[in-house]
């Protein structure tokens, strides 16, 4: 009896003994490792399933033919991605043009010019913008931004810049310009918050050195802050671009959903996510579903590469120059 109790006590002590042989440690580490592996499994599932759904398309079209054809006709099973690629590129580029200068100025205001006492309070409006769901932006865009563009902005642009092909045609409101404007609002929080993060990593000594040599605040920004965080700001822009490319609901609601390629920003267009959202539920033929999944695959590959590049840039800046020089 006493011996058995003693053995139990020894066993209990063994269980609790720290060190490499501990059974609990092995179980715990194994479980955590498996959970970490699950992230890679999810990534694998995404790629595998997209490829599986898109496979019927590969039998009908070559990749090059799919990307360069501009005919989209589900009735005859003819699919070309060009109008959607064009719409996605134009609206994303527009949103980057509109959002990036504002975002960088805003980030500089938060990190450099605003009184330090305000601190985190300043980021609240940006965080609120990020929290608004995309379908609410779409609703706002459809009933507020589109009429505003149609009645004020587009007629004005047409009158003064109508000689450019960009601003020709009837002002219908719905179209590339509306989608670009709403995307600009939606990607602003991403670009601002990542820019603020990287600007904050600028060593205070660099900035103070510039100020001590007689630089004004703005000159200190140009001499110390911008050069130090340049790569990270580029990363922030790429993350914003990735968000703009994949944004679905708001764009679907304001771009006009017409698969045409027009030089004018006033014209209605289409985008990759929008056509997937509109046609996937109703698609019946395997090739049609495959073509939509093919568009999804293009979208996935592009955003994956953009995000990967952006993360590498941002992490490099956050880790500091020692990391870059090795």
């Amino acid at each position: 009896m006493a011996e058995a109790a003693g053995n139990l006590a020894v066993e209990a002590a063994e269980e609790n003994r720290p060190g490499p042989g501990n059974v609990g440690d092995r179980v715990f580490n194994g479980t955590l490792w498996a959970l970490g592996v699950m992230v890679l499994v999810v990534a694998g599932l995404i790629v595998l399933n997209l490829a599986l759904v898109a496979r019927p398309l590969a039998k009908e079209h070559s990749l090059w033919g799919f990307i360069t054809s501009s005919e989209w006709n589900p009735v005859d099973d003819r699919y070309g991605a060009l109008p959607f690629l064009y719409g996605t590129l134009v609206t994303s580029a527009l949103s980057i043009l509109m959002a990036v200068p504002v975002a960088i100025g805003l980030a500089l205001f938060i990190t450099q010019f605003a009184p330090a006492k305000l601190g985190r309070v300043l980021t609240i409006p940006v965080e609120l913008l990020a929290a608004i769901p995309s379908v609410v932006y779409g609703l706002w865009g459809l009933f507020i931004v589109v009429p505003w563009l149609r009645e004020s902005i587009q007629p004005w642009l047409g009158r003064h810049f109508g000689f450019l092909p960009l601003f020709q045609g009837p002002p219908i409101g719905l179209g590339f310009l509306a989608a670009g404007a709403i995307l600009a609002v939606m990607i602003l929080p991403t670009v601002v918050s990542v820019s603020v993060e990287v600007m904050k990593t600028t060593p205070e000594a660099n900035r103070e050195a510039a100020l001590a040599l007689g630089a004004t605040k703005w000159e200190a920004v140009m001499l110390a802050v911008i050069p130090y965080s340049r790569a990270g700001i580029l990363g922030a822009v790429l993350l914003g671009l990735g968000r703009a490319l994949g944004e679905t609901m708001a764009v679907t609601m304001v771009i006009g959903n017409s698969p045409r390629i027009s030089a004018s920003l006033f014209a209605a267009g289409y985008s990759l996510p929008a056509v997937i959202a509109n046609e996937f539920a109703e698609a019946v033929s395997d090739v049609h579903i495959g073509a939509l999944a093919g568009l999804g695959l293009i979208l996935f590959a592009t955003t994956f590469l953009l995000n990967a590049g952006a993360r590498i840039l941002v992490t490099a800046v956050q880790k500091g120059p020692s990391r870059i020089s090795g």
Partner: protein
Amino acid sequence: MSLHSSFTYRKAVDRGMAGLCAVFFALAFVPLISVLWLVISKGAAGLSWGFFTQLPKPVGEEGGGIGNALIGTLFMVGIACVAGLPLGVGAGIYLAEKGDGTFGSTVRFVAEVLSGVPSIVVGIVAYALVVKPMGHFSALAGGVALAILMIPTVARTTEELVRLVPGSLREASLALGVPNWKTSLRVIIRTAMGGIVTACLLAVARAAGETAPLIFTALNNQYWNVDPRAPTASLTVAIYNYAISPYDDWHAKAWTASLVLLIVVGLLNIASRYLTRSRLKGAR
């Protein structure tokens, strides 16, 4: 910045640029206030008890609500939580506790990149995983889509917040002879619990606002539904359908439903902020 520019000129540039940055800051408020004001002013009129409890009614009929869509969103977010949160939180703890090696960095990198994958793409994946084998649209498919979206974001936030636990706590526990796994579970994770709940709340808020991955997985439903195998309505898809319809009273419903959605998302965000703050105080 050239040498021959006078001091007054440089000073003026400084003032001008600082002013411009302040103007940009103010500019961010324009869309924010516009969205919030319009959703509140246009949405508040339609709020009534029936809006929360009734089924939608056909065009032209008075009344009707979004009760089934509210239940549908709750149901699918619930499925997503059951499937996605344990995996996401677990992966986050892995990254915080054991993720310093090459494999950990790979997992972290993949999680970061996955969190930027468009939600519509995840919808296609859920379609392939659930809708295709089952042969029809279902609440389960919507829940799976939301779960896949949750995993990488929850993992990243969890890691960030678990890493806030001071190393001295771990050292104190190990010095007392407590094994590593018990230190992780009973000291580190228990201390970080508030942070982990925050990560989950933020993920729930994000999932509740997702539309794109639901339109061709959960589709829609005009009636009450709590069967995971049947198509189901959701708040966001209801807003979308009302918004793109040609009827004025449906547009009004879209604004009211948006107000409800903003309130839900807002409350979840406020709760998470409150939890983070009290947690950080505890750590000090």
